[in-house]
């Protein structure tokens, strides 16, 4: 997907729908731009704020609670059904 070259400059843009990988990738771009040191103060401030938002987004994605293991099956109508997974006793060889 083509990224708008100026999109990361928008400090106010939402980060909440970014997945970890996109947020981290954009954060690296922001850092590269800031560390390059050739941006004007106003742009540096906007970049910095965007960077803060991206760091927060990443941190929130890493902060989830431990997830329960579930089991997936198809119902009689073919619809997906997910239930808590119970490990079955071992019967040898099949694992």
């Amino acid at each position, binding site marked *: 997907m083509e990224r708008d070259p100026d999109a990361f400059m928008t400090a106010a843009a939402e980060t909440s729908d970014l997945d970890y990988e996109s947020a981290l990738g954009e954060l690296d771009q922001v850092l590269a731009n800031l560390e390059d040191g050739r941006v004007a103060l106003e742009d540096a401030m906007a970049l910095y704020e965007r960077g803060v938002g991206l*760091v927060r987004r990443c941190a929130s994605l890493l902060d989830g609670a431990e997830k329960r293991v579930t089991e997936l099956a198809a119902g009689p109508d073919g619809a997906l059904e997910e239930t808590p997974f119970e490990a079955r006793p071992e019967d040898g060889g*099949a694992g």
Partner: protein
Amino acid sequence: MLTPVRILQVGELNSLIRADLEEDPDLQDVWVEAEIGTHTHSAAGHHYLTLKDCRQPEQSSIKAVMFRGQAKGLAFEPVTGQQVIAHGKVSTYASRGDLQLYLDRLEPTGVGALALAFQQLLAKLEAEGLFAPDRKRRLPLLPRRLAVVTSGRGAAIRDVIHVVRRRCPITQVVVVPTLVQGEGSPTAIAAALELAGRSDVDVVLLVRGGGSLEDLQAFNSELVARAVAACPHPVVAGVGHETDTTVVDYVADLRAPTPSVAAELVVPDLEALRAELAARRLRLRRGGLGWLQVEREGLRQRQVRLARMAPLARIESGRQDLDRAQVRLAAAVRRILRQEGLALRSRNQSLSASGPGPRLLRAREEFAGRVGRLEALSPLAVLGRGYSITFRSDTGQVIRDGAQVAPGADVVTRLHRGTLRSRVTAVEANQEVV
């Protein structure tokens, strides 16, 4: 008298032979071990072969045919020289009377049989481009949900859950239980993969613990290989032990030697991700707020260079001004002290004993002003970009930290052009921004 001889028509003879053969149960249910001589796969889908004696291939052979209907179950493509076990019945082709073996089963023999079927399927799928590197999909860095297609019991699923809990407990494991060996297992695995493909997961693990070569056959089936290729999510295979290679390993987006390693490859180490993020957070602080420090360092170096290169006259004139100021200051102090009626032993003593008077302060300010003007000559590109430097007006100290001043303090801010003198109304010290 001549004994009457029964003269047969050719067709009658053929029918007689045929009837005779088909009445013999031994010839209607024959297993034969042979080597394939010639082989033709007709456009209609029938296989025509000659089967030769394994021990004396040049001395005995028989024609054989396998019609399209029976050939559907053929797991390999027959080739000349191949050792096979064939099953069928002996009969004749009525119109010509040719004796033939009508085959319903044909299997390569020995331990090479599975290997041969494996190689042939591999070649076929590769020719279709199913193993092409550009078909391989990238795995997500941090999967939210991970489907595991495997047996619901046994070590493989336990190992995977264990690894995910240890490395990345925030990733949800979704087990898609399936039969993994024996009759019907290819169909079951393909169905489970289809289910996983329809579910909301980021990546699919197809794993099975170690077993005999026969136990792993489902993962060498064309059905399962195609189900892996058709899965809309990236698939990571971890089947058997390190030494086992199955067709699924080739089709999968990533191949792991065991179920545990497959899990290690799919989920990141959460602590490592957190450390990585912390390092970036630090870089952001340095690159954002702390960037000023880099500029400050550059400024200091320029000042040093400037001091070295500036016309000596300027510095000299500054010094002379200072000397004159000091002389005048000393005189003023002496005058003040005399007015106070105190004895004065020496100029130096008076200076150190009495501390700076208001004129000394003014002289210092004047001096600071001159030095400031000198600095202003330096190429302070950084100020041109909108940065400014704030000093305490009483000590001239650069303010780096809100804690350095109290409300009510007077500060001096130097801009690219001009200077601001301000009074601090409030201090919000030690606020971490990130």
